[in-house]
């Protein structure tokens, strides 16, 4: 479970042609601002897609539309062949199948680490408390915070909290995991511990859509890189191609800026 920066994980083998998440002609406005324009994107089962782009490009919004934390104005979003339901019980069921990890962790502040991870399984999946706790402890162990199970979120470091948030999402046994800038709020020394968990997840075959500025992760773990600017997808390519030979001027400009440092 380590990230070796220069040797890409070869994920191509397990990428199947079977589409899991499909966005078709998605449009979204914030008032007069067209934040998502003509978005067409298909993510296959087991695929890891990294979405990058300058801030304000719409990449977080894109990520949040997939479990309808942001509604869209037109177009269609399908997960596992089913269209995204409107509000209500059906939408809640849909969200249970789509794991999400937020930039600011959003652990439930009044619940212990263990309760954070078991809440969904008990209340949504209707598992027994014992069953949910067993599974939660396994997951906490996997992300390396098992010994913190009885603490409250505020007592943990940012990196630990984010790993708990990943465990919380995994506890629902989601079909796909969304990561919305999962390391942007972290101190540099904690970024790696979170990325390690994510790489491990990728290696285990989880379908992942990751919005991030971590180019190292994109290079090593992604099957595909999607580049967005001004609400549009400008480029889609495998990481090697994208980083060595970007096509659009915006991508070249963007890479020039972030890779200089």
């Amino acid at each position: 479970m380590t990230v070796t920066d220069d040797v890409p994980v070869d994920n191509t083998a397990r990428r199947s042609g079977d589409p899991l998440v499909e966005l078709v002609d998605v449009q979204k406005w914030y008032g007069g601002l067209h934040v998502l324009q003509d978005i067409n994107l298909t993510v296959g089962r087991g695929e890891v897609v990294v979405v990058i782009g300058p801030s304000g490009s719409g990449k977080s919004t894109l990520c949040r539309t997939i479990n309808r934390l942001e509604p869209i104005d037109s177009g269609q979003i399908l997960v596992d062949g089913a269209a995204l339901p409107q509000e209500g019980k059906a939408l809640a069921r849909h969200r249970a199948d789509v794991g999400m990890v937020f930039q600011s962790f959003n652990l439930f502040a009044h619940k212990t680490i263990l309760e954070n991870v078991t809440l969904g399984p008990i209340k949504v999946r209707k598992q027994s408390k014992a069953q949910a706790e067993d599974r939660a402890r396994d997951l906490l162990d996997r992300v390396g915070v098992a010994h913190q199970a009885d603490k409250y979120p505020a007592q943990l470091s940012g990196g630990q909290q984010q790993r708990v948030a990943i465990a919380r999402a995994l506890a629902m046994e989601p079909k796909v995991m969304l990561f919305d800038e999962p390391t942007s709020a972290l101190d540099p020394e904690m970024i790696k511990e979170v990325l390690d968990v994510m790489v491990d997840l990728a290696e285990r075959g989880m379908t992942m859509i990751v919005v991030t500025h971590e180019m190292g992760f994109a290079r090593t773990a992604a099957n595909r890189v999607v580049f967005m600017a001004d609400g549009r997808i400008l480029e889609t390519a495998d990481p090697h191609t994208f980083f060595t030979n970007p096509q659009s001027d915006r991508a070249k400009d963007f890479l020039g800026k972030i890779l200089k440092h």
Partner: protein
Amino acid sequence: MLDNLDELFKGFGYTLFLFLVSAVASLVLGTVLVAMRVGPIGVLRAVGAIYVSVVRNTPLVLIFIFFHFAAPILGINFRWVQVHVGGFDFTSAFATAFVALSLYTACFVCEALRSGVNAVPMGQAEAARAIGLPFGGVMTQVVLPQAVRASVPPLASALIAMLKNTSVAGVFFLAEALATMRGLTNDYSSERIGIFACFAVGYILLVEIVSMISLGFERRWRIA
């Protein structure tokens, strides 16, 4: 004054009973109202908002007058309430005071909780939705428990105000503390100051107890 301690205790007995039952009812109703006000259903949001602005902006005395003198004409009355427990009579006057106080205080409970809900970061509700909790679950499991923690001081203020508002019932047929005090000051005009002091101390003690309980909750929940 010492000869009339039993009257004093009985008066505060009514005050305390009225406070307790109305506190429970207004907390329940206030929670329902806040769920309506922050919920996803537009009609309920509007109903909740209208209820709060109408009832909160009406003087409590007017609500009492309505239930005592107007509601009976509409066929709403509490004459059927006949509970007698150990010298205490919980009849029409008590029931009417309970209804008026609960309906009124529920608005303040709702707004106190709403301030708490607003204090809960958006991300908490989003995370709860993201793991597939429906609206009810998001509220009861994640938002309200945290909102209540943040609302303890304003909730305590609302309940303390209600404790003192029970005295309004004293001019509407209920022999609670204030009415008892007025009876005693009339009978023992020469001991007025002492009688005032005794009843003031009674109210101060009751309010102090409510404050302490609230402080206890604040301390207990500070860690989380």
